[in-house]
């Protein structure tokens, strides 16, 4: 569930950055680099390469990790264990908050995409969203194998689409590839500390389409924004570089917090 969330909140940092001033190409590339490397470290290195290996008979999640770190009934359990168990339970409790926000925000934002097509849809956005949510929760009792079957296909389609569009735009401005260098991110971090903080806050700040006006910039900014998937109906894991969704899914039926 943890890494499920990371990709759901795509890289919509750019609007924020625009508001807080992004002027040069170097800054844009720095921001991109910062996002790519911070998420890469957390998602790929921490969760996929390390924490997931600490599974309990194949079961992951914060409570399973907790039972591995501090087995119940162990004689050696002391004050530290008691404190860490509280920390683990707090972590699990917090996941419910995000567990409620994620369906709400993702369905709402997808439905808001209809505004692009028909302006008249506006008053119906909230009722329509509630309808879709009601449907989603109503089918839970029937089992969710069917949704699971669709998962692979829909996600493959989505990621391919993003990849194609991304490559097209990278081809327009290949210089954006400098963002793959961690040095650029560090450079940005050391030169624009406060802005970097805001950018990193935005990584967990899922934003969406409807920013066309703001994006009528030019040059690399547009490219970078497009690369990050702004100006496009918001989607989980809009960055094809992130392995999150693909890896998360096989475990999903038993997946945990």
């Amino acid at each position, binding site marked *: 569930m943890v890494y499920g969330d990371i990709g759901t909140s795509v890289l919509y940092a750019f609007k924020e950055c625009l508001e807080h001033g992004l002027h040069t190409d170097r800054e844009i590339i720095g921001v991109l680099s910062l996002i790519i490397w911070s998420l890469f470290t957390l998602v790929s290195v921490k969760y996929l390469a390390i924490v997931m290996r600490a599974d309990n008979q194949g079961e992951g999640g914060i409570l399973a990790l907790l039972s591995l770190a501090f087995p119940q009934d162990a004689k050696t359990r002391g004050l530290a264990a008691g404190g860490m168990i509280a920390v683990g339970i707090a972590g699990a409790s917090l996941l419910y908050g995000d567990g409620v926000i*994620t369906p709400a925000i993702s369905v709402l934002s997808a439905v808001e995409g209809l505004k692009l097509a028909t302006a008249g849809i506006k008053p119906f956005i909230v009722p329509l969203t509630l309808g879709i949510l009601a449907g989603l929760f109503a089918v839970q009792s029937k089992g969710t194998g069917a949704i699971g079957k669709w998962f692979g296909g829909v996600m493959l389609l989505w990621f391919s689409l993003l990849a194609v569009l991304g490559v097209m735009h990278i081809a327009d401005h290949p210089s954006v590839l400098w963002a793959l260098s961690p040095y650029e991110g560090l450079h940005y971090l050391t030169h624009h500390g406060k802005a970097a903080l805001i950018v990193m806050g935005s990584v967990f700040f899922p934003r969406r389409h409807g920013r066309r006006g703001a994006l009528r910039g030019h040059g690399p900014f547009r490219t970078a924004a497009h690369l990050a998937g702004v100006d496009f109906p918001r989607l989980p894991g809009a960055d094809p570089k992130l392995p999150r969704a693909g890896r998360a899914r096989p475990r999903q039926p038993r997946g945990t917090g």
Partner: protein
Amino acid sequence: MAPSWALYPLIALATAATIIASQALISGAFSLTMQGIQMGYVPRMEIRHTSQDEHGQIYIPKLNFILFIGCSALVIGFGSASALASAYGIAVTLTMLATTAIFFFAAQRLWQWSPLRAGLTCALFGSIEAVFFAANSLKIFSGGWFPLVAGAFIFLVMMTWKDGRTVLRQSLPPGLPLDDFIASISMAGTLDEHHKLHRSQGTAVFLAGNPNGTPNALIKNIKHNQILHRQNILLTIITDPNRAYVPAAERAEVSDRTEGFFRIVASFGFMETPHIDEVIRAAGEQGLAIHRDKTTFFVGKERLVVTDKPGMAKWREHLFTLLSKHSENAADFFHLPPDRVYEVSQVVEI
């Protein structure tokens, strides 16, 4: 950036993908809750398996309803995705920090990492996460309060449930050791016809929380009804908080305690939902046949009374009492056949 004819298909695709992403979160919440129930952090709730072959496909009706209400309230309350966005992020970054902290201990225990190595690794992740958290904390007042308030409430419920069960265990009157009880039954058997205890036909299964004591329901049944069945099975169902699955061969431990008394200790992992049929199957393999529909299942039920006795703070004891009242009863949770269940209640002061 995409041609205009592609708009509707793209919105449809986007909606499909968001539904799938939401599904991952909902399934994750079910799974987390089931683990929490089995580990004793979350009050018992009905867990249904929706798939025969996929073990992890579960459905928790109560939680589903709560999540639906929560989601709808957020959509109505915040009204737009961008308003909701400010509520997002704080919880996940805090959970990541918590995971890192626990991982520091898990790595040392599991892989014998040195404290230095575990410390450096966790410091690397922790520092990135701390920056993410600091960044997200900028939006606490614009919406980030929601997951914090919700999380604090759930934390309170979980800790109270966990501590409450410990207090409850300590408050239960010390039961008569089973060996002493059986010895007294055996003595009663030698009495003359007139004073002999009546042994009725059939099997009685007593759910017993404590694998060494005599269940309250058994004693009450003799005291008030003068009834003792020919065959009595004392069943203790344990969830192993340290194992996700328990192999079928290790499921049940059956011991013959003479005088028609048997003791079964059945273990399940924290990813398994205990089911009486599975216990019956495992006991059968060990030579103890139980006929599900010819057996009476005696289930003890504690009625809690909050008193000044030391334990938890009074308001937490009241909360625990409330949670107990609304948690699913053991008979349903273990899927006992409803028309074969006999509930015996007991007042417990906490």
